[in-house]
Each structure stands twice: as structure tokens, then as C-alpha cells.
């Protein structure tokens, strides 16, 4: 039960960890952008796609939100090679995260699009706004005010979820923690340090997104 913490053996790896944190952020950022694109397409299909397309998107959303992302990536990374489709670890994780994010973002975006009222657009038109002004002053602030809190928390969840890339050998923050752990054997130091980095990174992302919401769209977002 006697254990001396020796952070000195782990701190030389700090820049290595920070590089890993950057990979985590890039991975989840790419997956988020892809998910936003497919989510927007999915939300529009749900709202204006007719019964067949809307039903297909609904089935997709139900399936992907009710199964674990880890197993989805397992199927992509270990299962699809049986059918002759091979992915690199990074591509497999990115694809799995994108497909998963698309399902959640479809639901989030659908709620946002339906929150703009027709009367507000008409009021804008009456005041002589052109299409661009309507978009800038009415539609976007409205949608972002409703959507930024759930979108921001979805992004944070994705940064945390990107840690499962380590399972497939992607060297992001958690993957690099595994590497350093297996060379220094300072498990408690390594994983507490990495946990701290995750807290800092996600807190930074939350604050940044809240500032964007506050000064870009006059929306108030709670940080803590």
C-alpha cells in the first residue's frame, strides 16, 4: 500500500501527450464536420423527404443510437475485411465516429430547424431584409441559440468518445497514454495526467464555444 508518486518520470512526455490531444481534437473535429453534413442531409430528409426517405433515415438513426460506437468500429475495422474492405485504424475510427455522430446530429438539427417560426421570417421581410440579411439576422441566430448548447455538448462527448480510437491502435491522447504506460510503468501518474489533459481540453472547447455563442449569436450558454 506504500506508493510514491513520481510525476517526474512522466512529465518529459508532456509534449508527446499534447500532440496526442491535438490528434484527438482533429479526429473528433473531422467526425463532427462529417456528422454535421450527413446530419443536415438526414434532418432535411426527415422533414421534407417523403415517407420512404424519412423512414429510412429514421431506421438509420434508431439503429445507430441504440448500438455502441465501439462495436460499430469493431464491425468496420475487424468485420469488413472479411468482405474485402480494408481500412486503416484512423480511417475506421473516423468512419465509425462520423456514422454515429450523423445519427445523433440528425435528431439535434431536426429540432433546430423546426424551431424557426414562419412569422419571424415574414416580420424580417416586412422590414425590408434581403435573403442574406434574413439568414444572418434571423435564421442563424435563432437556430444557433437553440442548437449551440446541444451541439457543443455533442462535440465534447465526441472528444471523450474519440478515446476509444486507442483500442484500434490510433495514437491519440489515450493511445499515447497506453504507450507511455507500457514504457514507464507509472500507471497512476500517466492516467491522472491524461485525465487532467482531457479536462483542460474539453473545458477549453466548452468555453470557446460559449464565447462564440455569446458574442456571435447573443445566446447565453452555461459553462459549468
Amino acid at each position: 500500500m506504500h506508493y510514491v508518486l513520481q510525476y517526474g518520470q512522466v512529465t518529459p512526455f508532456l509534449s508527446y501527450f499534447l500532440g496526442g490531444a491535438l490528434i484527438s481534437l482533429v479526429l473528433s473535429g473531422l467526425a463532427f464536420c462529417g456528422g454535421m453534413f450527413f446530419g443536415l442531409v438526414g434532418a432535411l430528409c426527415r422533414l421534407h423527404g417523403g415517407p420512404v426517405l424519412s423512414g429510412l433515415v429514421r431506421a438509420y438513426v434508431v439503429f445507430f443510437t441504440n448500438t455502441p460506437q465501439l462495436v460499430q468500429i469493431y464491425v468496420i475495422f475487424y468485420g469488413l475485411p472479411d468482405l474485402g474492405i480494408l481500412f486503416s485504424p484512423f480511417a475506421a475510427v473516423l468512419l465509425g465516429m462520423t456514422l454515429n455522430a450523423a445519427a445523433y446530429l440528425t435528431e439535434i438539427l431536426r429540432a433546430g430547424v423546426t424551431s424557426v417560426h414562419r412569422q419571424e421570417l415574414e416580420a424580417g421581410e416586412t422590414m425590408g431584409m434581403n435573403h442574406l440579411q434574413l439568414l444572418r439576422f434571423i435564421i442563424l441566430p435563432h437556430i444557433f441559440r437553440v442548437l449551440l448548447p446541444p451541439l457543443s455538448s455533442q462535440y465534447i462527448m465526441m472528444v471523450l468518445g474519440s478515446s476509444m480510437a486507442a483500442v484500434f491502435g490510433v495514437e491519440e491522447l489515450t493511445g499515447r497514454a497506453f504507450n507511455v504506460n507500457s514504457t514507464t510503468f507509472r500507471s497512476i501518474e500517466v492516467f491522472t495526467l491524461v485525465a487532467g489533459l482531457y479536462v483542460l481540453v474539453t473545458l477549453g472547447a466548452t468555453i470557446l464555444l460559449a464565447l462564440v455563442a455569446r458574442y456571435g449569436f447573443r445566446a447565453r450558454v452555461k459553462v459549468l
Partner: protein
Amino acid sequence: MSFSDLLGQLPRVFTYYNLLLLGQAALTTLLLSAFGCIVGLVFGLLLALARRSHARLLLPLKAFAFIYVEILRRVPFLVTLMLFFFGSQVLGFDLAPLTIALISTSVISTAFVSEIIRAGLDAVKQSQIEAATVMNFGFWQTLRLVVLPQAWPVILPPIFSYFVLFIKDTALASQAGVLELVQAGRILTTKGFSAFIVFGAVLLLYFVISYPLARLGSHLESRLGVSRHSRARRPIS
């Protein structure tokens, strides 16, 4: 491997003993998430109460609850799990993988559930608590007879959807060697069965567990919403 080869493998994969393995693994998955949620409910309630308290004496507890919740919600489950996994070995505790996974699921879910409960408790109007104080209710009486019955319909739906979310998070417990669904899938693939079939089956099993619970959750949400609505419209006498 062609698609017809995969189809030919199906009867060899789904033998009695393989299905038994998958079934037991599914039970472990359920155990992990149910245990995590129940412990999370108990400790989450205590943490939420600590964060709401105004007593000078409870200030350290309040600070602890704040830091615990804010930090644990921003650390990935995998990192927490590995911290407990390697930490218990380094410190010389000889714990089974299942015990480690149960501890880490409880620790994580306590943080998330306490936030849900806090939001539910905040939804109860302050005047209700003041009225209870005027009627000389004690702290626990106020909580049990006034606050919790009103907070419960607000708390239950998000707790339920969190529970469904949590079932999927426990998939990561396989990385600590717990024999739950993903680990059972990994065992079957090392036996030489096609990973596509095995993990496809695991995916379907998760869906079979999660989907009815998700449906029950949304049903519960609409029913609680309706009952609250009708209660509000009902004449008082």
C-alpha cells in the same frame, strides 16, 4: 472471403455453447449498467444535495461534489477504467476485472446522475420548500414528502435515457478483460469465426437490449408529461 462463405459459416457460429456465451455476456453487460445506475442514483442524490446545501459546515463537501462532478464528466470512460485497472494493481489491491469495472461504472455514473438529479431538484419551486419549512418539516421530511415527489417526474425520463446510453458505454469494460458482450465477441473471433458475423451479432444483441428500454423511456416521458399536465388541469378539491 466471399459473402456465400460467410453465410456457410452461420450454423457453425451459432451453436448452443456459443449462444450460451453470448447470453451470459449480455447478462454481465446488463449487470454492469444496472449496478452503475443504482449506485449512481444513491450517491448522485447525496452529491446533488451537497451541491445545493447552504450550510457553512458542509462547504468542503459542496466543493468536493462540484470538483468531482465537473472533472469526472470530462474524462473518457476508458481513461477512468484504466486508472482503476492499473491503479489497483500498482497499489497492490488484488481485484477481479469485473469488480474494477463495477467500481469505475459506479464512479462515472454517480457524476452524471448527480447532475440530472440536481436539475430535477432545482425544478421544484423554492416556495414549496419554504412552505414545508413553515409547517415545521425537518430536512429529510421536506426531501421525502415535498421535494422528491415533485422532482421525480422531471428526473426519471433523463435518468432512463442516461441508463440506455450507459449500456452502450459499458462496452469499453471489455478493455479491462470483463467478459461482457464485446469481450465475448473477441473470444469468438479468436476461435476463428468471421469477425463480421460475430460483431454483427454483438451489434444486434446490443440493439435488442437497448431499443426496448429506449422505447420504454420515451413512453415513460410522454406518460409522466401527460399526467403532470392533467394533474394541473384537475380542479383542486
